């Protein structure tokens, strides 16, 4: 169908296809979790599926495909994996702390209001 895919040996094509399906599947399951899980602190676990397993699968698939097609090692996709590995923990940690801070200050405001009404 696509001309540049035909140059690949079938074994490599199967490997790339398997990696793609695993990566995209894990990302989709993570997104479904983002939609289905009931509380914020549970939902914060869902995108890590896409950023660890999902990104690893798709980036490795791309690396294998371009290495075999070009006949030389193509590793520049590793930069994406490296970048995502570095940035995701930072954003998730900041979001977790922000959520905790907001929940606590809201609970405190609620308690103050209840105390005032009780007086």
């Amino acid at each position: 169908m696509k001309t540049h895919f035909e140059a690949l040996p079938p074994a490599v094509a199967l490997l790339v296809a398997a990696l793609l399906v695993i990566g995209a599947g894990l990302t989709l399951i993570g997104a479904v979790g983002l939609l289905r899980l009931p509380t914020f602190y549970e939902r914060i676990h869902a995108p890590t599926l896409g950023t660890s397993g999902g990104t690893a699968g798709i980036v490795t698939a791309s690396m294998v495909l371009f290495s075999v097609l070009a006949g030389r090692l193509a590793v520049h996709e590793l930069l994406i994996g490296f970048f995502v590995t570095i940035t995701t923990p930072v954003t998730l940690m900041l979001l977790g702390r922000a959520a905790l801070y907001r929940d606590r200050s809201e609970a405190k405001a609620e308690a103050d209001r209840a105390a005032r009404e009780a007086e």
Partner: protein
Amino acid sequence: MTRHLPHPILTATVILMWLLLNRFSVGHLLLGALVGVIAGKAMSALRPPRVRPRRWWLIPGLALRVLGDIGGSNLAVAGQILRGAERRVPGFVEIGLRLRDPFALGILATILTAMPGTAWIQYDRASGRLLLHALDLGDGTDWAGIVRERYEGPLMEIFE
């Protein structure tokens, strides 16, 4: 040497990244080296604390263990999401950490957040207490023991 290359690892990483993004050629090697040296000088103007791993040969073992654990917990969390909410107890865990080196703590935070199923929520530097959220607490799983034994211990060996 130290005056012109204050951060040799950073400079080497920048050159490597430059050569990965462009095709390898002598011109790009020189250009990347120039950018790397400037980046090293800019970094030393920020005066970051020096990082000195004492037992660096233990790092590959820890990296392999983390990669394996991330792969395993990917499958576990995918299963938990697909199964639904029953038989799963989410909740917070409080863990007292002995690790004090800021760089090692950063690596521990990265490991625990990158691991599906655990999220680093808050760390109190004064008391060394870490608030961790787990998607499934499990039946009496010893979270503090797992974190201390699998990740904190090796990190302390490497950095302290």
